[in-house]
Each structure stands twice: as C-alpha cells, then as structure tokens.
C-alpha cells in the first residue's frame, strides 16, 4: 500500500507492486446515485480530446467501467454506487504489462462494503492485522511505517482506548524478554497486578494486567485506570503483535484473552467472530 486515507467521507487507498501494476480505491459519500453514463462519456470525451487511445465501455456486473490507454498504459476504471452507505466507489487499475482480466474480475467481485453496526464490535483488516475493536470506539490514530503499523481506537488519555500494533525487524530491536517488554509498554504510574503466559497453537502469548490509582475524587468512587495488554511473536511471519486495552472502572473486566479474540495474526490465531 502506497497511500491510505481514514476519512469516511472521501478518500483514497493506492496499492502498487514493483512492476508498476497499480490499483487505486477511491470513495466519496454522495447524496444519491450519480449519472454514470454521463460521467463515463465525459471522461471518454476528455481522454479522446487529450489524444489518449480508444476509450471504450467495459461494464462488469454492477460496476460501470471504462477502458483506455492513458499515456501508453492500459487503464481500466470502474465505478459503483453503494446505496446502503450512500457511497460512490471507484476502482482504478493501471496495467503496465498484460491486462489481467481474472485479477480484475476477482477484485471487482470480491469488493463489498461493511455496514457499521453500532451494537457489534468493529472488524478491521489492515496492515497485516485482523482485529475487533469495541463498539462505539472511533479510529483515532493510524501510524504506518516500515515494519510498524499501529491503529488506535478511542483516546489514550480518557475513557476507553484500544491499541493494536504489528512490528517487524524484531530481532534487531527486541533486546529483552517479551514479557518484560510488554510490562514496559504500560503507561507511567501503572502497577502490575498480574501476568501470565499461555500457548495457543504454537504462539507463546504474554499478557499483563496493571492498574493505576486516580485522583482523590474518582478514587473515592472506587474508580481506577486499568491497563490490559498482550503480545506475541507469530512464528509464521516473525512479527510482534501486541494489543492493549485501557479503561477506567471499579474493577478490571478481564479484557483478555486477546490473541485470536480481538487480534489475529495468521490462520492459527485467527479472529473467530462467533467467540
């Protein structure tokens, strides 16, 4: 992935491989279904006016498409309106080599939108992670760097916050036991209440539970800030997966076990939504 957006109203994700094949996903909330025929004919006319070759319609199922040679590269562009979301989606393929119709068909037929149900956890699949964030928590932060992806739901300083991370190059920077590293991820002032290590299908999972006393007024109400976290190294891709949940409450709710319940790494530790 070369670029991404987290704006639900309008945005773009762009993917490319080293051979210049490029795939773009654009979305925009609109009030109603657009006039695709007019849009595509305008676009075709513009391409023809700019001297780009042979624009022609190539609708596939519900996708309205146009194929053309733009700058000498075969480009196929498909649009579709998803009424349940009020969202206009455009998929663009740039084929520097051969036009792979099978791949194109797979992308188009496999594209679906997910309705956000406020009563259920939100499932996200991004940057090598498969995760379930609690209902009502908004995605507040996305960090994507080489060998490090981090998604934050909620605000770390107030209320409930859930953080999901995936790190690579582990052998280069992890210079302590994983359990100790996990303890150090706890926010300052946290007291470790419990730790455990469990095994799940070849994955050694470390979990830690911490609490911190709050200001006197909230303490008088019996409230504490709780922090629960888990980390493991997936033997399949040698990446370190970690997740943490912090919240204010009277008692720890026991958010774990985390692996495979709210964060999955591979098919052995996969999210089972039925859990």
């Amino acid at each position, binding site marked *: 992935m070369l670029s991404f957006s987290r704006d639900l109203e309008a945005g773009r994700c762009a993917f490319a491989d080293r051979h210049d094949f490029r795939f773009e996903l654009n979305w925009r909330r609109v009030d109603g279904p657009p006039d695709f025929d007019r849009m595509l004919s305008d676009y075709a006319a513009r391409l023809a006016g700019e001297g780009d070759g042979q624009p022609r319609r190539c609708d596939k199922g519900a996708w309205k498409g146009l194929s053309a040679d733009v700058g000498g590269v075969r480009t196929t562009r498909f649009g579709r309106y998803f009424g349940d979301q009020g969202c206009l989606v455009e998929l663009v393929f740039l084929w520097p080599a051969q036009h792979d119709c099978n791949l194109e068909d797979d992308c188009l037929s496999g594209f679906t939108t997910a309705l956000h149900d406020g009563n259920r956890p939100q499932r996200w699949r991004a940057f090598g992670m498969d995760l379930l964030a609690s209902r009502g928590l908004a995605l507040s932060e996305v960090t994507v760097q*080489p060998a490090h992806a981090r998604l934050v739901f909620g605000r770390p300083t107030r209320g409930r916050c859930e953080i999901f991370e995936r790190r*690579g190059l582990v052998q280069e920077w992890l210079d302590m036991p994983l359990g100790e590293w996990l303890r150090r991820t706890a926010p300052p002032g946290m007291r470790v209440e419990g730790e455990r290590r469990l095994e799940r299908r070849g994955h050694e999972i470390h979990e830690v539970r911490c609490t911190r006393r709050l200001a006197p007024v909230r303490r008088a109400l019996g409230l504490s800030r709780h922090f629960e976290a888990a980390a493991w190294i997936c033997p399949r891709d040698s990446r370190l997966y970690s997740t943490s949940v912090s919240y204010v409450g009277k008692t720890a709710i026991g958010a774990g076990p985390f692996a495979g319940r709210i964060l999955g790494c591979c098919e052995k530790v996969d999210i089972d939504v039925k859990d």
Partner: protein
Amino acid sequence: MSKTEVTTSIVSSRSSWRRMLRARMVRNAAAQVARESDGTIAVMVSAERPRWMVPPLRWMVPFKPQRTLRLDKLGSRVWDLCDGQCTVEDIIDRFAARHELTFHEARVSVTSYLKELIARGALVVVIE
C-alpha cells in the same frame, strides 16, 4: 487535479521508478572503511572545504577534512550490498528476505538510507 492528470503523472513517474530500481550503488573509492568488532562499519569520507568558507569565517567555523559515518547493524548490511554489482532492486530484495519484510517496507527503509549515504558522499549512484 483531474483524474486524467493524476493518471498521466503516475505514468510519467514510472520510468523514474524503473530507473531507480535498476540503478547500481557504488562506494566512494576514496572513502576509508573500518569494520568494528560488533559488525558495524565506520566510513571515513574526505570533505572539501566549501568555497564560502573563507577568512574571517574560516577562522571561526571549524572544518573537519574527514567525516566519519558510523553505520548501525542494519546500515552496515546495506553497505555490504552496495558492491557496484547489485541493483537497488537487488539490495531491497535481499534486505527484505533477510528481515522478513515486504518489498515496499524494505524499499522505503533502504532507499531513504541510500539517499542519506549518497548525500554524505559515501556512495554514488550509477544509472545505466
């Protein structure tokens, strides 16, 4: 920017993308290389006195005729791959394979590091 312009700009950047991947990295022949016991590398690069460094500025601003770049372990591995034979694509591939990264993850890390070494005079890029 219209969609056509976006697509055209993508297309025009493709040739530079391919050239970048095919480029070869050559070490500065004048640089001295010292390998440390922990596997890291120090590269000593001679620097020319800048033209603007004339008296009285020259008397006040210290000038080091040789700069030492200390490469960490990852940087040292990248340096080892810059043998004048490997292309940038080869270096990225080997780095990615060794560290179990995707091509693009390794590309971002490796190319930014190579740019830094080029800027500091340790490497030159040969584009054929």
